[in-house]
């Protein structure tokens, strides 16, 4: 009986100490839910998507169109007058194509319909570089062409 009573005292004290120490911790252990911290939001995840019609209006106002798809897809079909800026070559292509025109240059970023994530991330990078007028079109190349933008093919327009 003494052993049971002493054991109970130890368990009660350990429980009190354990929970009190947890409350005092900077990052208490939750009693339910994930143990892993939530993943940080992807760059550009909160960026509003622009419609194809907004992109068409931007085109008429002289915006630069940047295509984030891989060069092979870009060469096959793209918006006429757009420039290839795939994420892997972003730094090189940015300084070759975009940076000389200054941060006021209106930019439209597009890709394939499945590339919305890459489009948003590229748009976010451009905004981080100081560009204030950036539209992220996540509905894909075909929606732009359907809205009335002219298609083009071949590699003659990959660079300005």
């Amino acid at each position: 009986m003494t052993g049971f009573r002493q054991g109970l005292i130890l368990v009660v004290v350990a429980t009190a100490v354990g929970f009190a120490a947890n409350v005092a911790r900077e990052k208490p252990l939750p009693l339910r839910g994930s143990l892993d911290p939530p993943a940080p939001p992807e760059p550009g995840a909160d960026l509003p998507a622009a419609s194809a019609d907004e992109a068409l209006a931007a085109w008429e106002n002289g915006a630069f169109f940047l295509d984030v798809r891989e060069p092979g897809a870009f060469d096959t079909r793209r918006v006429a007058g757009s420039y290839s800026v795939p994420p892997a070559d972003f730094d090189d292509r940015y300084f070759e194509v975009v940076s000389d025109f200054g941060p006021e240059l209106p930019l439209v970023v597009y890709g394939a319909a499945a590339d919305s994530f890459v489009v948003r991330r590229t748009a976010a990078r451009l905004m981080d570089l100081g560009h204030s007028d950036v539209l992220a079109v996540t509905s894909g190349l075909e929606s732009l062409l359907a809205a009335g933008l002219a298609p083009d093919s071949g590699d003659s327009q990959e660079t300005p």
Partner: protein
Amino acid sequence: MKFLFDRRLVLVLRIALGVVFILAALPKLADPYGFARSISHYHLVPEAAERVLALVLPPLELLLGIGLILGVLDLGASVLAFGLLLVFTTAIAVAVGRGLDISCGCFDTDGGTKVGAMKLVENALMIGAAYLVMMGDRSLASIRAWRERARS
């Protein structure tokens, strides 16, 4: 077999067990998240129970260790040590039986010894030691025994 319950042997085992429990408690106290993950790898108890165990077991192991070394609440500490070791060993045996390739979470919350036959042998020896401490004469170098002598 009487020599197994020799007071000096019981003292050595008591202190050794106490040190083992304290060494087991410290990394878990420092990393409750890691310990909760270690418990979850066993898939034995619901999530809420895993979290409660992750909070309660480390201080309990620490208190047991201190109690065993100092000879304070030493009967309760040795009974709990014996019981906890039985539970831990059963959990490890179940994990081995299920073929789980997991760390035991005994002395480390990140990596550490994998569950397996060696771990079971190690735990069996500790269960034996805890049994001798629980059933033996723990009055040598014990604050409890010293206080009892002082009273009488």
